[in-house]
């Protein structure tokens, strides 16, 4: 899938990621916030919060590739929706 936004890119590719530095006391506080939540790490939590923040101002919606659109269109037609 070709999602244009880096926000949705494949996290397994290190080249798509950068390191941000935050004060250690803040990291420790975040670690306590994240404990016993659905988030697996401070990193995941911070990314979520930042995505939320950016989405409100930017809105870079995920899109489908032309091929995906065609697959979905054919599928909808077979299912009788179109």
């Amino acid at each position, binding site marked *: 899938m070709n999602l244009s936004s880096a926000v*949705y890119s494949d996290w397994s590719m290190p080249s798509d990621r950068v390191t941000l530095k935050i004060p250690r006391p803040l990291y420790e506080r975040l670690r306590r916030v994240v404990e016993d939540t659905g988030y697996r790490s401070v990193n995941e939590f911070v990314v979520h919060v930042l995505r939320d923040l950016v989405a409100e101002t930017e809105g870079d919606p*995920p899109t489908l590739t032309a091929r995906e659109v065609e697959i979905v269109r054919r599928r*909808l037609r077979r299912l009788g929706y179109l």
Partner: protein
Amino acid sequence: MRLALIGLDGVDPGALAQLLPDLPTLAGIVRGGSFLRLRSVDPPITVPAWMCMMTGKDPGELGVYGFRNRADHSYTGLALATSARFTAPAVWDILGRHGLFSVLLGIPGTYPPKPVRGRLVSGFPAPEAATDYTYPTSLADDIRRWIGSYAFDVREFRTEDKAGLLDQVRTATANRFALARRMVAELRWDFFAMVEMGPDRVHHVFWADHDPTHPKHDPGSAFRDALRDYYRFLDHKLGELLAGLPAGTQVLVASDHGAQPMLGGIAVNEWLLQEGYLALHEYPERPTRIEALIREGVVDWSRTIAWGEGGYYGRVFLNVAGREPAGVVPPGRYEEVRAELAERLTALPDEHGCPLGTRVLYPERTYRAVRGIPPDLIVYFGDLAWRSLGTVGWNRIHLHANDTGPDDANHAPCGILIAEPRLDLEEEYGILHVKDLILSRFGIEERG
């Protein structure tokens, strides 16, 4: 406080009431709770109906009138409604702002996945081979570990192999409920919501076998009990899931629309052609989709007043001067032409001259707001007992075969809402109120 919303696509209140004695899990919830008719949106179709339920917004407010919507006023600009089109906050967005976690599985309209405070597995109509279908993406690794591959839906729907299809639906349902059980057990959540597409798939294929009032019903059919047996299977899977929920979890079971016998199809563009609203340079030798005719330049736009789209309901678009690229209807005559079309579509009889009971909706009178580009008219042939066929080349208007393969059921305007604990409500409830109902269970009064 935890709440689980189990969505069952297309479950009809009348059919379910008949089946309920065979469904111990659902009957048990009904005994201790409420069983209401849930009035869907117009059109009562999977997309946008589920997202209307989750946002409390009608299709006009969302600007999503179906799976495909006009992106512009060109003749070919139909865009798929992906998650990006649903910009209004969903119930899980509001819960997230209040610090609550949601685990979401298979809700139509959530592909591609968007961030959520919690976990999300995208829903129909995600492409079968989709790889990035979860939020966060790492959830897909957990799913592989938990259940192997995840099936979004049945793979091959239009098939004469009904036994094989039934197997497919059961496999997909078992797969989704297996994942649901792992998600509720392994992940942190306050709100869990899932949608199972199986009932709708079974209705479309086995409704005539099940329903003695269906014109195609054959009492000797080998599949007479297929629908009932599937519901028993579904009820068993639901029971397994509910048994794994933490004690005290509140439960809602809902559907996005109902089902009814499909009596036939109206070839909407054949009718428009016959009545002089649509003009072609050349009549196709065999049934051809209107999109193909438009793409190949076969539609004579200089003489075309209106064209239509097929689906479980009909959509009619006017060719308006200054709006469409080669529009002919003067803007000053738009309302007059539209009213004439609406009146004539409403009066269109069946092939024996009997009234069809067609309803025609005007978007601006149907919705609280009209965003995006709505169809000029929304048409429920036979009040949805007949589907709309967009293809041209049949040389007739009334058909009793679908142009996409066998199909015995159409959608009906009311789905279900089953709730435990009991709801102090009337017998019919609106789908747009479900979001606030969920929020109120969490003590959240936020509106909008």
